[in-house]
Structure formats: C-alpha cells, structure tokens
C-alpha cells in the first residue's frame, strides 16, 4: 500500500543541517496496522509527513496505492491526500471557529459533494467515534479525548484507504488513550483501513501488527 525507497530528509536552516531521515526503506501492506516508535527527535513525525505527502523527501521514492507520487503537482497532491489519506495529529488541529460537525465535514468540502451528503457522512463518522451528542459544540468546549475523537471522525469521514496517526493518544490519559486505540483497531479490523501510527506507548504498539523502531533517522528494527 505504501512503499518507501531509500528516503532521506535533510532540514537546512541558515546555520545547521539536520539529517532527519536517512535511507528509510519501508513497505506497508494493505490492511496492515503499523506502529512507529523511537526517541524524541528521531524523525517519526517527519517520516509520517512524508508518507502523507505533506512534505517532500530530499531523496528517495514514494509510491502509495501502486502510484508513484514524485511527479504529482500541487493539485494532484491535494486530490490524492483528500481521497486516499486521513490524518490524525497529536495536537488535534481542529479549527476553533467551526463547530464539531463543520470540522468533520472539512475534507468533504474539497470534494464534489452536496451539503446534504456532507452532513450525512459527517454525522455517521461522529456516530462511529461516539460523539453524536456534541455536533454543535465548538472545539474549546470539548475535553482532550473528545477533541481527538473529532479529529478521528474527520480523518475517516472521507473513507480513506490509509490513516496516518501521529501520537494520537499522546496527550490523553490511559483510559482515554485505550478508547481511541479501540476505535483505530476497529477501523483496521472492520473496514480494512491501513493504519500507520506513531506512538511512545509500548502497550499501544503491542496491539498493532508490526512495530518499526527509528533511531536518529534510521530504521533499527
């Protein structure tokens, strides 16, 4: 499903050059639930961003769903992200000026859908994460766990084949974290969604199919 070949990422600022990723080769199979672990600053988020086409590698090739993505232009990249990928971030990234339901609808806004259809799909997604009773709330009126569930609803509303989650439980207590994990596992099991998840939590990682460890930009396991 996701194929990374010899990925290298260098961040250049005026004074320093950081080698964030070095020679990563990774194959994620369709329907696989993969977790990535490693110490802070080892390049986990960078790797996930590159997989999600949010960032370009300095070197190497990526293909997703059998399509090489290197030659995509901005519009094609946007469309690809919109239809194939769902993102969940550690800090949720909800839009504070929009109600829960509108936040969830956001990816559909960049598709050819009617307002009615958007509403139906968003309501469905919110039901899946157990938040149907909070659709008119604003993000600041929700707890951290609830916010992350909104973010999950937003990631799944477009029915993507791949979900990329960057420490989705990092800001939550273990009970909340387990709940979120259950939702992801369910998505993987029932809908067959391919999931790549960055985590610091060994217990969470244990529940996934495969674990990749990074150290200083290189894959160590």
């Amino acid at each position, binding site marked *: 499903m996701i194929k990374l070949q010899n990925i290298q990422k260098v961040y250049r600022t005026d004074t320093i050059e950081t080698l964030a990723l070095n020679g990563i080769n990774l194959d994620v199979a369709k329907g696989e639930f993969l977790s990535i672990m490693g110490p802070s600053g080892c390049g986990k*988020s960078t790797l996930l*961003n590159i997989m*999600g086409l*949010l*960032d370009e590698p300095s070197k190497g090739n990526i293909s997703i769903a059998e399509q090489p993505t290197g030659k995509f232009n*901005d*519009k094609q*990249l*946007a*469309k690809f*992200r*919109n*239809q194939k990928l769902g*993102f969940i*971030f550690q*800090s949720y*990234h909800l*839009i504070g*000026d*929009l*109600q829960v339901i*509108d936040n969830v609808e*956001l*990816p559909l*806004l*960049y*598709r050819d859908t009617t*307002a009615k259809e958007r509403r139906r799909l968003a309501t469905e997604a919110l039901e899946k994460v157990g938040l149907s009773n909070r659709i008119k709330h*604003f993000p600041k009126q929700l707890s951290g766990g609830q916010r992350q569930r909104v973010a999950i609803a*937003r990631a799944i509303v*477009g029915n993507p084949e791949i979900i990329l989650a960057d420490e989705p439980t990092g800001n939550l207590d273990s009970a909340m974290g387990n709940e979120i994990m259950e939702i992801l596992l369910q998505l993987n099991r029932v809908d067959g969604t391919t999931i790549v998840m960055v985590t610091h939590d060994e217990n969470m990682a244990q529940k996934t199919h495969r674990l990749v460890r990074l150290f200083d930009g290189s894959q160590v396991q």
Partner: protein
Amino acid sequence: MFKHLFKMIWNKKKQNSLLIVEILLSFLVIFAVFTFGLNSYNNYAKPMGIDYQNVWAISYNNTLKTNNGDSLKLFYDNMVDNIKAMPKVIDAAHTSANIPFSTSHMSTGLTHNGDHIQDVNSFMVDENYPKTLNVKLLDGRWYNKTDVGSKQKVIVINNKLKERMFGKASAIGKLYNDDDGKKGVKIIGVLDDIKFNGDYQSLEYAIYNRIDTSSYRWLGKILVKVSPDANAAFESQLYKFMANNLKDSNIEIEHLTNKLTAYNKFTLVPLIILSIVAAFLIINVALGIFGVLWYNINKRRGEIGLRRAVGAPGSSVSAQLVSEAMILATLSLIVGAFFAVQFPLLNVFDLPASVYLLAMLLAVIFIYLLVLVCSLYPGKQASAILPAVALHEE
C-alpha cells in the same frame, strides 16, 4: 463552500467587526470624494452659457458730481455708445459689479406661490447685456425701450430659477413678490444659465434687473466684446478714452478669460486639498486592510496547513482568503450603502440623485478593487505555506 466561508466569518464576528468598520469608513470617505469630484465634473461638463473669449471688463468709479439720475444716464449711455462705435468693438454693456467670474456677489430672495426662494443672484444690466455675452434667451423677450418708465416692474430670470418656480411650464407673464416688498413682479423673459462662478461651481438662481436711472451713481462695470484682433494697442486706446471721459476715476481693464482662470484656481483649491487628504486616507486604509489580512493569515497558519493536509490545493486556500475578504467588504458595503443612500433620499446637499448614485457605484467598485488588491498578495503567500511546516509550528 460559500456557506462554509460565511460560517467562518460569522463565528469570528468579533475579530471581523474591526475590519468591517475600517472598510465602512473608507467607503464613506471615498463616497464623499467621488460625490464632490463627480459634481465638479458635472458642472465642468455643462456649457458656460456665454462667450467669454474677447470680452473685456472695464472697471471705473463714478466721479461725476451730479446726483441727477437722468443726466447721469444720458452721460453713461453716451459713453457706452461711443465705445460701441470704436473700431474692433462688437458690443458693449453696462452692468453691476457682479460680472462673470468676479468675486463680487449680490443676492436677494423672492416668494412665489408660498415658496420662498433664497440665494437668488441679482444682476443690474442694460439692453446690450445678452448680445455682448452672447447668452441665449430661452423664452419671452429681453428688455427694450417699451420698459422705460413702465409702472409694472418687469424681470428676466434664469432657467434654473424658472425650473424651480414653474418646472416645465412657461414662466412668461407670471408674477412673484420680491423680498424688498415689491408685489407682482412680472416675468418677461427666461435667460439661459450662466456659470458665473467659473467652470466647477454649480448653477445658481439669478434675476436680471434692468438698470434704472438711480443706479448710475454706483454702477462701475462695462463689458466690451471686441474682435479677435483687438490688441494691447487697442486696449490702451480704450483705457485713454475712459480716462479722458472720467477724470480722477480708477480705470482698470481685465479680460474675462484671465478672470476665469483665476476664479477656477480659487475653486479648485478645496478640491485639490480634499483629493490629497483622500489619497492619504486611501493609502492608510489600504495599508490597514493589507495589515489586517496579513496578520489574519499569519494567525491562521495552522488552519491553512490543516486545510492543505485534508486536500485543499494551494489555489483553493488563497481563493478562500480572498473570498473571505470580499465577503467582509460586501457586509461593509451593505451598511455603507444604507448610509450613503440617505443623502439623495434626504436631499442633504441639493445635488442631483444621479451624482450620489454614480458616486456610490464608483465607491463600491473602488472598495472591491482595493480589498481585492490588498488580499491578493497575502492570499498568494498563504497558498505557498507548506502544510508540514505550518502544522509543525502549532
């Protein structure tokens, strides 16, 4: 998408209200400038009403000792006849000091059908006045010998006054009462409008009185229409003639073309000052709008990164920001138009409604262009924001 943008704007109404007020104020200022400018242009586009080329104005002061009106009349009529008889002189007319483009004004008021009309310019002129200035008589007749000694006070009015008093109907033979207590002044003629305040000022009401014998004591202007080849030598000849006829009088000869230039300068000064002030205001407003949009976009980098992540192309992000600015402009303009439309409705400055409406339209277009230009660059910057970087910063 439109509904989505509207929701965003509505949910941020507190932050947006500042920008809305700013755009509203600039709209009102620009509306005022355009109204003023358009009105000046409209006035400029209207015909002058007279041929002022080759018309000279002789100023003098009466130095004759006699107080006898009849002998004064005889003297001055004779003098004007002698001027008319000079070579290169086409016509000459005796008038009061308020000749075209002079800063001297005389005004009065009158009552007609219970309608009291103020600020009516009052001129004292003789029979030669229309021919000397080549001003058209639109209706009725000009003064002639039959008016001498007539008991009935007769008057010629200008077209603007006629339209105020009678609209489309004829004014000839109609009566009014003047503010000096004279009842039943009879209108015998309607003279075309003259822009006696220069190119840029509005037309005003006017009545033209026939000079009576008692006025010669204080009259002091003679308008002379000369042929195009009248030169400086002829001007000094005319000067000498006046000086010889009126001992100890201050004689001065001016050209109406020069007087017009001077008067226009005088009336253009406020327009120029207003334009400069407006230009500064517009620059200020443009910078303000630009600044607010710029600030907004930087504050919303996270949101922009997120939209890009969930599938918005760069072009869509910049289109969104520009559209938001345009929606805000529209909200301001709706409020602004409500204020602006009060001016023609309440007829605040006695300007034609068409001037206000056109000024409004131009101001609306101007504001849209201004907001568009000010939002294009920040919008373009926003489209260049890399999603990974923007999300990383949050």
